[in-house]
């Protein structure tokens, strides 16, 4: 083992120049546009604005956790977090459930023409969130919608409904993408595993439930984590829906709150909110990862 690492290390030393060429471009860009911004946001969040007297010039001074106290007292920020959490609790399971069902059906011998369906379901992923939101905004609008029978009975853009109307837009865009990830995981299951089950007389539903679903749990966890991140970061869809519905305020989601706080401009408070949101996102996705790992191990 020791000799092995020694050999490898000497090989690496020999190729130090090549290694630098391979790693430096990414290293520099990753540092400049990932690490530095994160550190800078933390630094900015620790500053506060002070004035000399009432009319003196504003200067930024170190304020410790002042901004964080402000964040925790900021009611709109927390209600926007609550709103996206509610959104996630309902929308993510529906979206992933649909993606799983469609992936299982595509993978089963029950469905013919699976290539066409796969592309049809995936097509919305090619539609940018902004465009998808504009399109659905038109579809929801009572005077434009092709579904006037529905839209005249039910106001999709009302204060009570608009969150779920946005949930539908997100679901429409991302089901196909998540389906494809789960479907790829299903394709990598060796066919022999099914043979024994078939010989035992198991039908497609039994095979799906007892063999396929447990084997795609890692893919489900992955899609789940990315969906949670996406939910907490909701921005483009509600931003567009502000044009369609007065119920979507400038503090509708955490990112909208951060955006409107930054344009006040209250940069330090916005930076502190960004840090809190990033930490919340990280804690939540990490918790989901750990919980599902434990479940999977049992």
């Amino acid at each position, binding site marked *: 083992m020791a000799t092995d690492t020694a050999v490898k290390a000497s090989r690496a030393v020999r190729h130090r120049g090549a*290694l630098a060429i*391979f790693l430096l471009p990414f290293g520099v860009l990753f540092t400049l546009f990932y690490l530095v911004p994160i550190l800078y946001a933390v630094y900015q969040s620790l500053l506060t604005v002070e004035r000399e007297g009432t009319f003196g010039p504003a200067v930024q001074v170190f304020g410790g956790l002042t901004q964080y106290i402000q964040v925790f007292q900021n009611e709109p920020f927390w209600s926007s977090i609550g709103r996206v959490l509610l959104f996630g609790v309902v929308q993510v399971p529906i979206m992933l459930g649909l993606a799983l069902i469609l992936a299982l059906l595509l993978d089963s011998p029950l469905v013919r023409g699976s290539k066409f369906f796969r592309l049809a379901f995936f097509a919305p992923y090619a539609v940018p969130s902004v465009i998808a939101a504009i399109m659905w905004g038109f579809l929801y609008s009572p005077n434009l919608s092709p579904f006037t029978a529905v839209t005249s009975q039910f106001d999709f853009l009302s204060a009570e409904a608009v969150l779920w109307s946005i949930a539908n837009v997100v679901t429409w865009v991302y089901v196909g993408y998540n389906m494809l990830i789960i479907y790829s995981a299903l394709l990598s299951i060796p066919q022999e595993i099914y043979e024994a089950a078939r010989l035992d007389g198991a039908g497609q539903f039994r095979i799906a439930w007892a063999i396929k679903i447990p084997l795609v749990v890692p893919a489900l966890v992955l899609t789940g984590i990315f969906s949670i991140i996406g939910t907490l970061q909701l921005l483009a869809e509600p931003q567009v829906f502000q044009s369609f519905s007065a119920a979507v305020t400038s503090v509708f989601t955490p990112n909208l709150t951060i955006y409107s706080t930054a344009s006040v401009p209250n940069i330090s408070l916005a930076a502190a909110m960004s840090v809190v949101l990033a930490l919340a996102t990280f804690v939540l996705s990490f918790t989901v990862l750990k919980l599902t790992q434990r479940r999977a191990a049992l």
Partner: protein
Amino acid sequence: MSVTTETRALRTQEAAKRPARDGGIRESAISRTIAMAVMIVATLYFLTPLWWLVVASSKTREDFTTTNPLWFADFALFDNIAALVQYRDGVFLQWLANSALYAGVGAALATLIAAMAGYAIAKYAFRGRETLFNIILGGVLVPATALALPLFLLFSQAGATNTIWAVLLPSLVSPFGVYLSRIYAAASVPDEIIEAARIDGAGEVRTFFTVATRLMAPALVTIFLFQFVAIWNNFFLPLIMLRDEGLFPVTLGLYVWNTQVSQIPDIRALVVIGSLLSIIPLIVTFLALQRFWQSGLANGGLK
């Protein structure tokens, strides 16, 4: 693709009842009917909005609100396109070109940069390799929107907001691309080939460009496509970075138009046709490259 051939086999064997591979168990006609019904309902859900967009784009302003929204009336698609590209000296074409530049150049460079890093991490042992990889992996979990505000602050300190670089440079980083490249290079570029190239006297960098990139092609196409989509769809970064309309990507431009619909009702038709034109490049790219990205997804990162 194995599934396609499987489907084809099923279709030809249909007359001969169920194929033997089911071990003699027949799926009941009821399950098959239900399965197909679910697929058809799902297809309607996913494709109807796109169908509506195509139909709506082809209509005159009068027909837009007065005729059946899901079927064609007087065919005015080309008139609408002409109106769109002439509006305000063709600013829409400028936006499309900007999006193509940001997404095309950005994704190509991001793919190359990520592939080199992933390949190096997969194929060279060096101190701190796993730590480096874990930091990059952490970057996968950092959403682009969370970085937009601090990036804006940094760029404004450098006086570089409202430039092409403010949008282009941050999109050159793809931590997911490094992750996928590492996994894929480890699995598909054998050490023996690298050794053989060394014995032939090829330099390390040359070996990467001539040998490794070819073997990693499906992963590279996958990274390129997903980065292309991510940049094309990116909204927050251009929203806070750019003020000059001439630099907007198409998503931001259409967003701004859409906010003006209540003041300028005529612009609504332009938003509709513009939306259609802005998604066609993505759908064409995905369809043209599907063979690559589907196998890249299946073999590379997601096992």
